[in-house]
């Protein structure tokens, strides 16, 4: 039996927003981009994290009293979570084997079939754990389940080759095509991302859905969206989803003691006008 494990921060059953139909979405922990607007900051590092929701906490101190751990770094025993009267603490991330994840996915097979749905692997960047991903995708395909992979694409092409035979759909994120802008917003170049997308489009059979986060003051300037549209002219894709920037992840930053970058609010009309470009 396969013993590889992945750290996953959420298994969301009954999702309607991560591909077609009813889906189960598996959120892998760990990412190699650092998008300044990231709405899932708990997905960035690979290891488990203790989240402490500041607005729920009354400072009663019961968590510190119960904590047996003197070394200062949390061992994730979970005692403080039980003790906290205000639901202000949560452990983010849990290790799963391929079999354990599959057992969760297979549970809703009847609903996938009834709705044209399936499973979506997301994150973080699920493709950074390519061996695990290959195994779980293979199992899902053997069970006749539709598979989707939500990726930012910043991984070696070999990782794509590994999973291509078992992936029906890619949800592929494009943040910017101008390299400098991309580096400024995500701290990595987009060279690999764009060339992987081109390869996927030319050589792969999987359906491609392009997802573009619309971030005010990042890609809403200097005709960046139009540049993306131009680039996509040469790409085979099924449809494009424009994801409007939102700030609902702010409290997660506070819970992790991370700095939150406050972008301006999005002008609602802008999404409609961008839709016309594609």
């Amino acid at each position: 039996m396969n013993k590889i494990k992945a750290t996953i921060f959420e298994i969301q059953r009954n999702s309607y927003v991560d591909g077609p139909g009813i889906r189960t979405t598996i959120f892998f922990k760990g990412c190699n981009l650092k998008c300044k607007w990231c709405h899932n900051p708990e997905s960035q590092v690979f290891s488990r994290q203790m989240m402490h929701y500041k607005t729920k906490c009354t400072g009663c101190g019961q968590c510190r009293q119960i904590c047996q751990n003197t070394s200062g770094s949390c061992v994730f025993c979970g005692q403080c979570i039980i003790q906290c009267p205000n639901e202000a603490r949560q452990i983010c991330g849990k290790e799963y084997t391929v079999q354990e994840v599959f057992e969760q996915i297979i549970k809703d097979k009847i609903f996938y079939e009834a709705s044209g749905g399936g499973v979506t692997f997301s994150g973080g960047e699920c493709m950074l754990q390519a061996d695990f991903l290959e195994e779980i995708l293979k199992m899902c395909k053997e069970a006749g389940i539709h598979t989707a992979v939500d990726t930012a694409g910043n991984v070696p092409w070999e990782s794509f080759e590994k999973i291509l035979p078992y992936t029906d759909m890619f949800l592929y994120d494009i943040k910017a095509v101008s390299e400098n802008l991309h580096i400024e917003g995500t701290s990595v170049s987009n060279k690999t991302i764009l060339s992987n997308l081109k390869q996927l489009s030319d050589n792969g059979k999987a359906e491609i859905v392009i997802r573009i986060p619309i971030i005010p003051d990042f890609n809403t300037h200097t005709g960046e969206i139009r540049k993306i549209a131009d680039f996509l002219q040469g790409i085979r894709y099924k449809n494009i989803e424009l994801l409007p920037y939102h700030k609902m992840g702010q409290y997660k930053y506070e819970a992790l003691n991370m700095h939150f970058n406050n972008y301006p609010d999005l002008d609602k009309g802008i999404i409609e006008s961008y839709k016309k470009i594609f």
Partner: protein
Amino acid sequence: MITFKANNPCTAVSLFEQSCIEKGLSYKEGGTVYNVISPHIGGLPDAVNSLYAIKKAVFEDKIISFTDFMRILKNNWENEEALRKRILSNYTYFGNDCDEVDEIAVKILNDFSDMCKTYDEKTPIRFVSGVSTFGRQIEWAPSRIATPFGRKQGEILSGNLSPTPGTDHNGAAAIIKSYCKADLKKQYTGAALDIGFVPSSIDNDNAITAIAGLIKGFVLLGGHFMQIDTVDKATLTEAQKHPENYQNLSVRVSGWNARFVTMSKEWQDMIIERAK
């Protein structure tokens, strides 16, 4: 049954039902072709969760003796907050598609309909089982005692055959699967299930396809009575005040999710604004 008939002949019903006058028999004496009395049970998911919590905490994990446990419940969990939360949050309750707990629901439902059947065969009246509370769970709340799965005295517990508020964490598909594990054909007069959605999590094109899929799956699994609604403003406001009862509400945007109860007040307010 005889005294029941004599004391309560159902005169008005007998007057208006077909064939009671012709036959000279009251409704309860078998005056109509079809006579039905249908006892309905309420609070079944609470009973299931209670039995399951006792099974786990007392007999399997042995974290407390049965006698101590009962004493704690009589005292409404007083000074036992840690234990209460441990039992409430560490076990998986009805509505999460977990066979171990759902089996208890199947057993109670089967036993209940079998009991009704013994009367059904003895009288001219069909005596058939069903499950419902239809809002009466609110009326019943003040006389509720503390439950073994961590709820305190007087709390509103489950409505119809829907999970106890706050104990389902896996969404509608899992609730439907838990519900459909029983042979629902035996509940002749219905066993209602309620499914609620946060409006902002279903305002996308795919949600219609998905909800149609939920209904289809429900029927394929043998379900026969489901009410689908959106969670209204009042409920969301209630969830802000009493998060412990609303652990299940989740808010989704592409690639992003959060449980409503963990969000800061500001963002909760925004979601509430968008509800009807």
